[in-house]
């Protein structure tokens, strides 16, 4: 993909993150005020609520989309900051490969967790 394509993807990822991270913040960090999508009641981070959300198709899919969009947006943003500092071309290429590798590993870890958690026992 060319530079402007990457930039457009960066902006699109920002919009996706805004919507899905906004939902995450309302559900998890504003649970005392809104108390939505926590079927067992109480804290959104109580195990019963976490496992029920983790087993729902909606949260599994949106979690993976959010993970990918946030990692792309975050690492592309970090790459932009590094490039603004004016490194040489070879260094720029090295950073791009490094950030791509780290982002890919994190995406695999997060996606594996989002899928593997669906088989975890609800109560142990």
């Amino acid at each position: 993909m060319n530079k402007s394509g990457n930039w457009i993807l960066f902006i699109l990822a920002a919009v996706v993150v805004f919507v899905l991270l906004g939902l995450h913040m309302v559900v998890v960090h504003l649970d005392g005020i809104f108390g939505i999508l926590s079927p067992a009641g109480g804290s959104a981070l109580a195990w019963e609520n976490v496992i029920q959300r983790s087993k729902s198709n909606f949260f599994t899919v949106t979690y993976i989309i959010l993970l990918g969009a946030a990692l792309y947006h975050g690492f592309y943003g970090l790459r932009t900051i590094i490039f603004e500092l004016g490194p040489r071309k070879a260094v720029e290429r090295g950073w791009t490969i490094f950030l791509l590798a780290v982002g890919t590993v994190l995406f695999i870890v997060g996606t594996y967790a989002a899928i593997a958690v669906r088989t975890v026992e609800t109560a142990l």
Partner: protein
Amino acid sequence: MEKKRYDNHLELLGWVAGGKWGIERYLYTLHRITGVGILLFFMIHIFESSTRIFGMKVWDPIMAAMHHPIFKMGEALVFIAFAFHALNGIRLILIELGFMVGKPEQPVYPYQSSLNVQRPLMITVMIIAGLLILLGMVDLIFLA
């Protein structure tokens, strides 16, 4: 002596001091600082939240540890950074897409400045971010 790639390149110093800038220039700095901070947290958060695959016996002690004031303060900082970065990001996207910029005009006196539109936009998004931060802090301090 080797010539610098950019003669007027201020590097990180340019984030905080490089000329007589408007407040939007400092929002640029803050947008980058909060962005890097959120990214660092997010990388840790992926591993911390992935521990739910080990079940309730692992999850509950980790969540109990998160009630320590240090982690609560960290959560507050992340929420503040998120609220600012998200709302300021919306402002930047609107401007990037050509909204609030105005139509191109001949530079004829009296000059028209898009700042008359962009400054109220900046103030509006900062007020919304402030209200969101207030909501988050009320939840974190009184309702968590």
